[in-house]
């Protein structure tokens, strides 16, 4: 009895992407949908051998891929005319500087065939490896994942999908989310000011590699310094929160999260004087300063962070024996660099999670008092959480600065902290895989879907709706007020609220988390002590 509903659900969700993008995305999404279907069916399969399990999953894989194809077809023949783009618009295949024009129909045919085949293949493979012993399965999964991650960027570049910018942004935020996951997910400390660490990492790296204060150190050195400065900042900003309980801790971190960008925005006339003797030693104006013992910046107040103008240009990574502009306009080197950073971070975090400090984090998350009585020092443990969490935002910040080649203070505001929090919560607190998935979903929606929806909606309005609407107010409303990108705040807000109400343990939770969070449902009305007992 083959139940096709999971395949249909996965396919439908994936079809949403091809519905918006069409074209070559059918191949990639078809593959991914097939893989997820295979994973799902493989895990639930009752068969014994990998071969049998795999075979069981082929049809569902085809179904899912089929849905994806359907989405793409609908895009091609329903959406494109509705948004005023003729179907026959052509796509390019890009090989470096040369472009090869291809007829859309041709592309569609290839994509459908490839998408379906790859989908079925992926489904079969992912399902079949579920039948293997844990170790082998893990290894195979990792290999497959690595292969995909290596091939995808080349595919994307050749087919000119124009996803790379968004993908890299997703990766940066995944790195941030992995860091925040340590603080919120592992140690249970709600940090609402995580953007501050991102800013600190970015500004550190930026200042050490830009004309702002005339330092131009190597990126590969600077990234480590940024991480180190990040962890020190984590200690500094975490220290005051140590004795505070949950919501107060959150508010204090929010306070810091607001203070840090203000600091960076306004350190544009820095003069340091000893308060009592009034001796100036940094940023001293030789004419105005009475007591001048200037050590640095002796022509006048120092413009440390360039304020709103931002720090730019920021130096790029240089790899010996490669062209200097390798990390130039091309996306690929950046993609691989951040991928390496992410993999490295996952490796580190995993090691920490499985070591004593990881267990200590879990312990203080569950019950701080009990943990301290078992010999775990809550102060050190919490500080470690903050420091480690901030380290990864140091990496992310350094990468970000170099990637954009500029840093502006307005980037690091509260919404960034909340978006990263969204990812961690959507994915499942304390679960790295969940966090990555959450990151892809949230950031993918923000950077890929919303803009694409905006473009399509605009086209739809212009081509289909407006010609039929004459009332000027309504026309203005439709063109101006309905912009999907302007609804991103609502999207993030809804994710948070809905997740908290419906599934606070996240999409990929651990079993204990789910039990812990749903125990409160029935414990209503219990006297305080007994409710506490029931909730644990």
């Amino acid at each position, binding site marked *: 009895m083959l139940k096709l509903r999971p395949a249909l659900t996965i396919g439908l969700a994936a079809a949403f992407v091809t519905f918006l993008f069409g074209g070559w995305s059918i191949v990639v999404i078809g593959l991914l949908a097939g893989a997820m279907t295979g994973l799902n069916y493989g895990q639930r399969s009752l068969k014994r051998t990998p071969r049998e399990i795999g075979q069981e999953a082929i049809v569902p894989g085809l179904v899912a891929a089929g849905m994806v194809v359907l989405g793409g077809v609908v895009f091609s023949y329903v959406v494109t005319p509705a948004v005023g783009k003729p179907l026959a618009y052509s796509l390019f295949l890009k090989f470096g500087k040369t472009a090869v024009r291809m007829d859309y129909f041709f592309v569609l045919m290839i994509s459908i065939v490839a998408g379906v085949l790859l989908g079925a293949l992926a489904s079969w493979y992912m399902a079949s490896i579920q039948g293997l012993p844990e170790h082998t399965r893990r290894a195979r999964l990792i290999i497959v994942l690595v292969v995909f991650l290596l091939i995808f960027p080349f595919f994307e570049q050749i087919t000119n999908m124009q996803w790379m910018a968004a993908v890299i942004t997703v990766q940066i935020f995944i790195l941030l989310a992995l860091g925040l996951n340590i603080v919120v997910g592992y140690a249970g400390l709600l940090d609402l000011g995580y953007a501050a660490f991102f800013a600190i990492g970015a500004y550190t790296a930026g200042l050490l590699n830009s004309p702002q204060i005339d330092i131009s150190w190597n990126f590969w050195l600077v990234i480590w310094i940024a991480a180190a400065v990040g962890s020190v900042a984590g200690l500094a900003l975490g220290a005051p929160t140590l004795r505070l309980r949950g919501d107060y801790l959150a508010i204090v971190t929010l306070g810091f999260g607001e203070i840090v960008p203000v600091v960076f925005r306004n350190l544009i006339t820095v003069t340091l004087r000893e308060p009592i003797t009034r001796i100036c030693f940094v940023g001293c104006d030789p004419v105005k300063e009475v007591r001048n013992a200037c050590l640095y910046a002796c022509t006048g107040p120092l413009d440390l962070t360039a304020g709103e103008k931002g720090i730019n240009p920021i130096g790029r990574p240089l790899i010996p024996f490669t062209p200097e502009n390798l990390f130039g306009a091309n996306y690929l080197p950046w993609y691989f660099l951040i991928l390496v950073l992410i993999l490295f971070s996952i490796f580190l975090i995993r090691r920490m999670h499985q070591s004593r400090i990881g267990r200590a984090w879990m312990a203080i998350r569950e019950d701080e008092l009990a943990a301290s009585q078992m010999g775990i020092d809550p102060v050190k443990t919490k500080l470690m959480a903050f420091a480690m969490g901030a380290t990864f935002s140091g990496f992310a910040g350094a990468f970000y600065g170099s990637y954009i080649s500029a840093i502006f203070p307005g980037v690091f505001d509260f919404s960034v902290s909340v978006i990263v929090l969204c990812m961690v919560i959507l994915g499942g607190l304390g679960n790295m895989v969940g966090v990555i998935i959450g990151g892809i979903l949230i950031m993918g929606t923000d950077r890929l879907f919303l803009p694409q929806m905006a473009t399509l909606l605009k086209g739809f309005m212009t081509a289909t709706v407006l010609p039929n609407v004459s009332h000027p107010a309504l026309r203005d409303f439709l063109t101006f007020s309905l912009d999907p990108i302007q609804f991103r705040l609502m999207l993030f807000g809804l994710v948070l609220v809905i997740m908290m109400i419906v599934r606070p343990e996240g999409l990929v939770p651990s079993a204990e988390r789910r039990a812990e969070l749903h*125990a*409160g*449902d*029935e*414990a*209503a*009305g*219990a*006297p305080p002590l*007994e*409710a506490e*007992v*029931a*909730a644990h």
Partner: protein
Amino acid sequence: MLELKDVHTYYGNIHALKGISLTVDDGEIVTLIGSNGAGKTTTLRTIQGLIRPRHGTITLNGEDLTKVPAHEITSKGVSQSPEGRLIFPRMTVKENLEMGAFARKDKDGIKRDMERVFTVFPRLKERISQKGGTLSGGEQQMLAMGRALMANPRVLLLDEPSMGLSPILVEQIFKIISELHAQGTTILLVEQNARMALSIASRGYVLQTGEIRLQGPAARLRDDEDVRKTYLGEH
């Protein structure tokens, strides 16, 4: 008359009350004794509507209270001096008592009952404008009971009135409870201090890990060997 039939109450997955059945007739003073964690407070909280039983019924003079929300139960005639007193610390004695009569609308009756409370607890009258949090333990207990009386209840639930009080105060409080009973108030008394409880009650129930182990006239319970060993500390 208050009746519980086969009441099962859960805290999440913890089965706190496992089929409690008891009755309190008009004018009686019934006691529910048992050690810590037996479920005595849970029973009172269930009656009061603070927690809803999963199975079983609670009726007051035939009216089904089982699904009635907590704030309506008081107006049906059940009021409580809860475990830990739970008086409002930043409100004055007078305001606390006024809160007790919150569900009532008869201004004259409320006034009369406040006078009555002051007669029974003259100390409260002395401290009428003092904030509840500044009262001593014994005074707070009096305030909690006075507050419960202000609801003019048909059944008065008392949860561990002796808790944290010195022996002299305990005697005082129990004397007052007896007096209240003598004046006609129906009382369900939950107590850890089994000796005092059984000395003023007419009937009693012994609660152990959520079930009623023993029941009967107070005198009989006083003489019961297990009761004497476990709850009266005699060998």
